[in-house]
């Protein structure tokens, strides 16, 4: 075909594209288009490690029970039925029998049965699979099928969170489709790209790097989801993501940057929704020197750490970099935890006291405005990830606040992988860390105890050690009585706050942007998306002039 003859054909295609969407618009059901920064990795839940895949998996695969919105993890109070409609404890509490909802079925029509639960436990515990859930279900000795609807979990020993670990850690998988595949071959199995679940949404399609689509399962055993289609549209650039929201190409974006929130005010068809997230940000102080053995000349001293904490006006820093709705963190835990106590004492913002403490500890102010002690300057480096604007801005503010008390601070920006690698190798003095938390307060044991520090692994990278803190945490984690556990947690929290192994900055409070036609259900702190089946996308008109999105439900 000669070029001039091809042009009309291309023009026709373009015209068809513009017109085609408008014609399709009327026939589209309610759709939630969510802009997310990264594609999913693998949709087989035991292999899932990224956020997008977790979100898709949560809508396709069910657990036996779901924690309530209050996130209680001790005993079975507040848990909601999911695949299991009821459960029975044995007299000695060493086994729990779950009764499956007989109406539950896989999206290929096969009913969900107890052997699916048995298989799912085995796969998650398998080293060949390497599921992140594996260590969390180590307390379970075995799972058996009493009958086709009754899987029974047998435990090595009683523990306060045994119900949570058995019922809410594992997503149940279809044994009839997977059990013939060796565990070591699961990672390359086609199932990870075309999964079959039993949840409120069924898999529709996945275009690598572009989008993942789920359709509502109209026969879902707990009732039809309210939104017909969910589409995760992958948009790595945050600038493009916000433009997509403003233009109506997407009607939900998970995370708005502070500058985006300000712009959102100019779009009456959009709204910002604040919701809690289980993530705490802090400036971690490495208590060991570069050789890894001797104490750090600055942060090895508990009093100096406390003084530096008191030099920081955390409320002002958070208000400046984020907003006044973001809570200042009390410690390495979330205010959404059942163990949280709002009466916990905190180190105050008191720069004069900070200066006095530093004077007492022998840090003498030099003519250059920097304190010195035994020839060592009060001079350290904050490591910050170059990918996080918020943390870089926070580093600059902290630098200025430390200067007021005579500390000289440098800021080192590195890419995210290097940032994580440096922490893991303990090659840092101070680091601006964001720590994702388990929904259970017992996660503090894995992250902050002496055992974690001495394991030389990724946890407790600042090498904080306190026998008192360890004892309180051990007692809290073992207490069967929630009231006693809360009391122990209170004392553990108070201890770590007083010891100041980090300067606790803020708890993550996500701000999502969405069309005013989208009515979210409760956005749970650990997984905002867990109730997506209960969201609604109301009637909204609107057609983009470009015809790029032209349907009632998805455009604002």
């Amino acid at each position, binding site marked *: 075909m000669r070029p001039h003859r091809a042009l009309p054909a291309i023009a026709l*295609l*373009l015209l068809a*594209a*513009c017109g*085609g*969407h408008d014609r399709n*618009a009327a*026939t589209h059901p309610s759709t939630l*288009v969510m802009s997310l920064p*990264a*594609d999913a*990795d693998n949709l087989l839940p035991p292999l899932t*490690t990224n*956020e997008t895949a977790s979100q898709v998996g949560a809508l396709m695969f069910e657990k036996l029970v779901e924690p309530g919105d209050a996130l209680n993890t001790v005993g079975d109070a507040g848990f909601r039925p999911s695949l299991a409609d009821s459960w029975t404890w044995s007299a000695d509490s060493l086994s729990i029998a779950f009764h499956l909802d007989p109406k539950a079925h896989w999206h290929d029509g096969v009913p969900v049965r107890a052997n699916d639960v048995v298989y799912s436990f085995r796969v998650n515990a398998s080293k060949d699979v*390497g*599921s*992140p859930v*594996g260590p*969390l279900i180590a307390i379970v000795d075995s799972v058996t099928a009493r009958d086709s609807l009754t899987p029974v979990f047998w435990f090595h020993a009683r523990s306060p969170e045994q119900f949570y670990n058995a019922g809410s850690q594992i997503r149940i998988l279809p044994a009839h489709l997977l059990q013939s595949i060796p565990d070591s071959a699961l*990672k*390359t199995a086609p199932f*990870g*790209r075309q999964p079959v679940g039993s949840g409120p949404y069924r898999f*529709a399609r996945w*275009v*690598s*790097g*572009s*989008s993942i*689509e789920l359709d509502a399962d109209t026969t879902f055993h707990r009732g039809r989801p309210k939104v017909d289609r969910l589409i995760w*549209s*992958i*948009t*790595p*650039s945050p*600038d*493009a993501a916000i*433009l997509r929201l*403003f*233009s109506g*190409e997407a009607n939900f974006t998970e995370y708005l940057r502070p500058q985006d929130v300000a712009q959102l005010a100019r779009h009456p068809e959009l709204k910002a929704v604040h919701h809690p997230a289980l*993530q705490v940000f802090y400036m971690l102080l490495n208590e060991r020197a570069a050789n890894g053995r001797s104490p750090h000349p600055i942060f090895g001293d508990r009093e100096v750490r406390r003084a530096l904490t008191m030099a920081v006006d955390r409320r002002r820093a958070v208000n400046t970099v984020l907003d006044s709705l973001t809570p200042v963190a009390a410690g390495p835990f979330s205010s959404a935890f059942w163990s949280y106590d709002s009466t916990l004492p905190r180190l105050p913002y008191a720069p004069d006291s900070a200066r006095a403490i530093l004077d007492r500890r022998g840090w003498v102010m030099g003519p250059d405005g920097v304190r010195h002690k035994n020839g060592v300057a009060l001079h350290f480096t904050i490591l910050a990830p170059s990918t996080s604007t918020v943390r870089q801005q926070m580093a600059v503010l902290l630098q200025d606040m430390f200067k007021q008390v005579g500390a000289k601070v440098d800021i080192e920006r590195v890419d*995210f*992988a*290097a940032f*994580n*690698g*440096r*922490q*893991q190798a303990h*090659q840092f003095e101070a680091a601006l860390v*964001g720590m994702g*938390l*388990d929904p259970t307060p017992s996660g503090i044991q*894995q992250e902050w105890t002496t055992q974690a520090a001495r*394991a030389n*692994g*990724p946890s407790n990278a600042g090498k904080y050690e306190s026998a008192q803190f360890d004892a309180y945490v051990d007692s809290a984690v073992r207490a069967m009585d929630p009231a006693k556990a809360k009391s122990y947690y209170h004392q553990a929290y108070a201890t770590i706050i007083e010891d100041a192994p980090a300067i606790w900055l803020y708890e993550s409070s996500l701000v999502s942007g969405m069309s005013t036609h989208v009515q979210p259900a409760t956005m749970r702190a650990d997984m905002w998306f867990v109730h997506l089946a209960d969201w609604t996308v109301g009637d909204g008109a609107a057609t983009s002039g*470009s015809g*790029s999105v032209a349907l009632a439900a998805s455009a604002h």
Partner: protein
Amino acid sequence: MRRLLASRLLQGIAVVWVVTTLTFVLLHLAPGDPYAFREGVPVAPEVLQHWRHVYCLDRPVSAQYVCYLRSVASGDLGYSLSQHRPVRDILIDYVPRTLELMFFGMLASFALGIALGVLEARRRGTFADWGSRGISLFFYSMPDFWLALMLALLFAYWLPIFPISGIENVIAAPTNSWWQRAGDHLRHLVLPVTTLMLMTCAGIARFQRAAMLDAMRLDFVVTARAKGVPEHAIAGHHVLRNALLPVITLAGITLPSLLGGAVLVELIFSWPGMGYITAMAVGSRDYALVTSSVLVTSVLVVLGTIAADVLYAIADPRVRAA
């Protein structure tokens, strides 16, 4: 000709090997590894240790390199730890999209660059010459991410003519007919291709202009003019044909810079191609995927350069003879 081809191929193989090896070593020397703990994902140390062992990550870099070479030699490009898929499957998904972007990007760049070069040469010293050179230099000087964002802002948000990003309308795609999907896909190509075109056409235009001016001074042009051949025929049939020869070489040189520019263009326009996936993989220290992406990219560049050399040899008998 065969000797030329064989020599270029051998050089190409050496270049690909050096580039891939350097990438492998530098990536492994950088802090972090695919299982450096990730914020927000609490993973038990024993699980990390298990996976590090499975993928040779607990061995010295030299042993990992041997592991890698062995697996590549057997046709296995490895397993991507960030995507949880065999690298081969990922490349099958992503390489064609980059090739598509490159094809249309080069086509548009050369079409516009050659046209501007001809215009500038024929209107040498006039306002059109200065204006065209100034404008193309302006776009050439722009940072690629800024140019891409401005185009998105202008033509997708303020003037909503084209989609902001992606490769298709995710809402309508499942119900669209194939021709609607093809048209929709073309619309999604417009802004990324325009960005690539504006980034590279200035260089081509300058090259083309200089080649045209050189050719215009040659004897056969003077003869044609003396014989009364019209100016447009001289420019089209005599000057342009000769001035196009050096531009063939430029095609081989432009490909790497286009591929480099494509990284940011793909990220900003959410175009899931090689640049996009490689940038993601570097961030998560996905050794297998980064090394294989570099391998494929360097092979593409080498093949592009060889194709340019061969085309040049075909077009110019003097090169063949040499």
